[in-house]
């Protein structure tokens, strides 16, 4: 594969960091401050898009910054998988920025400068994770992301926010330092390198037991993927302002966790090694448990954002499950679930936020009859929940379909059952919300409420529309994914 050296990946990361001094500098002038956020988001997206043709023609963009540890440079490489993830995150950042302006101003939130700053840092780190060429670079960006999101989670600064922040840190940093770091060091000790390669860098000479322990350590170490039992930080993190929950806790942060697991399985161990030793069975079991438990807990939630959080936990494990099936369809399903779930879930969060801005309500039981007051919002909510459940005409259908096929391909009928049951459960917790909104009588508390500000409304409409479009034009994604699969599976099978 041809490799191009370019600083574009680095620029993509730095684009949002450059904006920080400007954001701080204009902290007294909100319009300018937000302009710089948009500028950063736009330029970041454009830089990433500009790499698309290169990658699609089968080349790989690399940027080595310098050697940080002997044999392990701080290095960025753009491959199709990373690019897919980066595209999703950076495009959604633009929409989230628009939404943030509406949301933060609508509620008159405090410390907005800090909010925009750390948002920009978090995005830089996310892109950094997507483009990391080796485990150490990935780990560095992963930790930066953990720290950058902490002030966002604790944004409200009250006792609840602080204790959630503590829990968030305890889970995320605890797992990454306690499990991920030693696993990485042991890998380095065994292999002498940390650079991802299509066939994995952990050779078959290592005993199965060690590999198994390492895999488990990595999977739990990436606690951002919220595989049970390390999931409790995600519902806690819902105290953050809604745009944070939307972008970070539905797209960037949690997807980073999942992305790390994908990288571990495809780049560190290699699909073939795992397949030949059938090491992923425990991961599959964990993912299945998480899918079911997450959905079951979501059923009992009344707080809308917490419901979405548990839904996210269960949906993330779809991706983990798809990857650990190690079959072509399963991987396709997992990869395509990244954008599908991202667009679906961010819409749902935008809706939850819009409802909060307009009514101040957080609980589902208080939203009866809201569909008449906020028809656009609730319609978007309906579309997005269809997507998450996996029903046409929404993009989510594609990923579910591929996952189901993958489970058959991998000869794991139980997984098939889990997927189907979970879809039913998904419907079970989303449909009542929609039903209550449209078919119940409007409660006096929400009577006379109008739609949220335009800044909130436009992004959520756009993401909902995209969710539908993706079902009919999945080609760009498929093309990227087939490139990625060629690397991952084609290398060996």
């Amino acid at each position: 594969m041809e490799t191009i050296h370019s600083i574009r990946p680095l620029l993509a990361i730095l684009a949002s960091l450059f904006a920080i001094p400007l954001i701080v500098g204009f902290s007294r002038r909100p319009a300018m401050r937000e302009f710089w956020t948009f500028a950063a988001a736009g330029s970041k997206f454009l830089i990433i898009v500009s790499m698309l043709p290169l990658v699609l023609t089968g080349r790989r963009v690399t940027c080595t910054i310098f050697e940080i540890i002997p044999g392990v440079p701080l290095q960025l490489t753009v491959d199709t998988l990373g690019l897919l993830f980066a595209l999703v995150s950076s495009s959604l950042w633009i929409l989230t920025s628009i939404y943030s302006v509406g949301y933060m101003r609508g509620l008159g939130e405090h410390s907005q400068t800090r909010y925009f700053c750390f948002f920009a840092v978090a995005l830089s780190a996310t892109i950094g994770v997507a483009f990391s060429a080796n485990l150490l670079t990935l780990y560095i960006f992963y930790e930066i992301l953990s720290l950058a999101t902490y002030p966002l989670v604790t944004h409200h600064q009250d006792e609840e926010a602080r204790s959630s922040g503590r829990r968030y840190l305890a889970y995320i940093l605890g797992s990454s330092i306690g499990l991920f770091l030693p696993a990485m060091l042991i890998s380095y000790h065994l292999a002498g390198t940390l650079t991802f390669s299509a066939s994995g860098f952990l050779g078959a000479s290592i005993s199965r037991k060690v590999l198994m322990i390492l895999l488990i350590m990595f999977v739990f170490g990436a606690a951002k993927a919220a595989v049970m039992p390390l999931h409790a930080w995600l519902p806690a993190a819902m105290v953050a302002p809604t745009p944070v929950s939307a972008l970070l806790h539905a797209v960037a942060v949690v997807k980073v966790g999942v992305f790390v697991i994908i990288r571990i399985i495809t780049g560190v161990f290699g699909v073939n090694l795992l397949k030949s030793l059938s090491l992923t069975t425990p991961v599959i079991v964990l993912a299945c448990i998480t899918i079911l438990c997450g959905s079951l807990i979501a059923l009992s939630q009344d707080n809308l954002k917490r419901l979405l959080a548990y839904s996210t936990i269960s949906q993330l494990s779809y991706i983990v499950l798809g990857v650990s099936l190690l079959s072509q369809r399963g991987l396709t399903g997992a990869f395509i679930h990244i954008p599908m779930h991202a667009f679906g879930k961010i819409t749902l969060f935008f809706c939850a936020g819009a409802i909060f801005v307009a009514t101040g309500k957080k609980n589902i039981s208080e939203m009866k009859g809201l569909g008449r007051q906020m028809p656009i919002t609730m319609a978007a909510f309906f579309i997005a929940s269809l997507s998450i459940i996996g029903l046409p005409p929404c993009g989510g259908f594609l990923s579910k379909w591929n996952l189901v096929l993958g489970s058959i391909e991998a000869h794991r009928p139980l997984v098939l059952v889990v997927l189907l049951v979970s879809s039913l459960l998904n419907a079970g917790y989303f449909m009542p919300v929609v039903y209550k909104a449209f078919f119940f009588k409007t409660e006096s508390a929400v009577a006379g409420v109008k739609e949220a500000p335009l800044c909130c409304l436009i992004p959520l409409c756009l993401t909902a529309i995209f969710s539908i479009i993706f079902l009919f034009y999945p080609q760009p994604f498929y093309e990227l994914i087939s490139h990625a699969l060629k690397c991952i599976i084609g290398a060996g099978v």
Partner: protein
Amino acid sequence: MTGNYPALLVTVPLLAAFVIYGCSWLHKRSCLFMALLGLTIPFAISVALLKKVLINGHISYHLGGWDPPWGIAYELDPINAIVLVAVTTVALVNLIATSKEIETRFSDRRGAFYALYLLFVVGLLGIVATGDLFNLYVLLEIASITGYSLIAMGDPARAPLSSLNYVFMGTIGACFYLLGVGYIYIMTGSLNMADVHALLPPLYHSSAIVVAFIFCLVGVMIKMGFFPLHSWLPNAYTYVPSPAASLIAPLMTKVMAYVMIRLMISVFSPKFVFSSIAASNAVVWLACLAIVMGALMALAQRDVRRMLTYIIVSEIGYIVGGAWIGNATAMSGAVLHIINDVLMTFCVFLSLGAIARSTKGYQIENFSGLFKKIPVTMATFVVSGLSIIGIPPTCGFFSKWYLILGAIEGGHYGFIVVLLLSSLINIILFFRIFEEAFFVYPKTNAVHTEGEASIAIAETPFVTLIPLVLTAILLIFTGIYSGSLIALIIKPVVSAGLL
């Protein structure tokens, strides 16, 4: 003149100290300027020496023109050259940053303060550079006596007693070291490190040499505050005046840790230390205990400065453990951690000193709302805290990386667990301060209100702030360049004596 750099490095601040004290009786205001000059020159010299050592290799400087076993020699290799740079950097930057406080707080005895400050630096530089066992003792005493008196100038209620306890422990440590040197001298008849190194191998099985090693080691360990012998450290470093805190706390213990490594490698040999004495496992376990106990005791403190002193105890455990695992990777990690720990302890104490301007005390409760008040100072505090925790890309992460890697190679899994555990405890330690400083406003528990109005920004003056920010940036740079630090400077020296 460049040939005399090794001597001038130590004697320029020495001469400056004398001139300052003499001048302080005549013209007080010129003291600060001379002190700055007296530290800038050695800083430049140390950098030049590092460059020279990297190009030409090992430098041996014979003082008075006498050849080593008879005269005293300075031996410079890349490792101690870099430690020298670290010492001069910290001393110079700290003096610039805290000069304002020194001038006001010790206005009637500033000459004495600067003189002792410089002499402390002289002592440390000499300890690092010297190639003579007895010369090391004398310089150690210079550093100690100046250290005692600087510490005693702190909180008048507690500092003198803490300092006197330090005198007792420190004297026991120095005397033990001296006894050990005496035993070596009886058996070999030499005091020069390289000469002793050459004479020792036939004597490795002599009990006198083993006892000599034990006593030298225990002496040095008392001075560096290694766990069961650390009792003097928390009090001494808690009540020290803040301009001296950010000088003594980062340097003294770390330089002594370097002395330990030096004793292990260039006086005795790794073969003796790791084969003849089968104690390396025991020492590593002791280091584990040091790390855990340090971290746990830090957890029990509400006073931030006292908490940091226990973190120092724990960090010393890292270095000792790394050094005693006995392979090149872990030893490199230990040496790297000496440098990193100098920088991060310096940064954290310096920022704490700057923070103390805006708070009533060092209790965690006093930190509430500080981020609004002194954002940049707090940011540097955060960076140093993250470095102590070991978050990449700050430097603390990389020394932990090598330490853990070395522990994996050496099969010391307990040490790995302990390192990770202490990182986790450090997260708790620092984030409860960060939380207080960032997200709690004093008195009113404001939710959804603009906090900016209630707290005015009262940032630290630039003369302190700029050095502080530079140090924080340096923490990140040292982290990023730690790969070259290891490859160019540490590994070649360390692996010469180790596997």
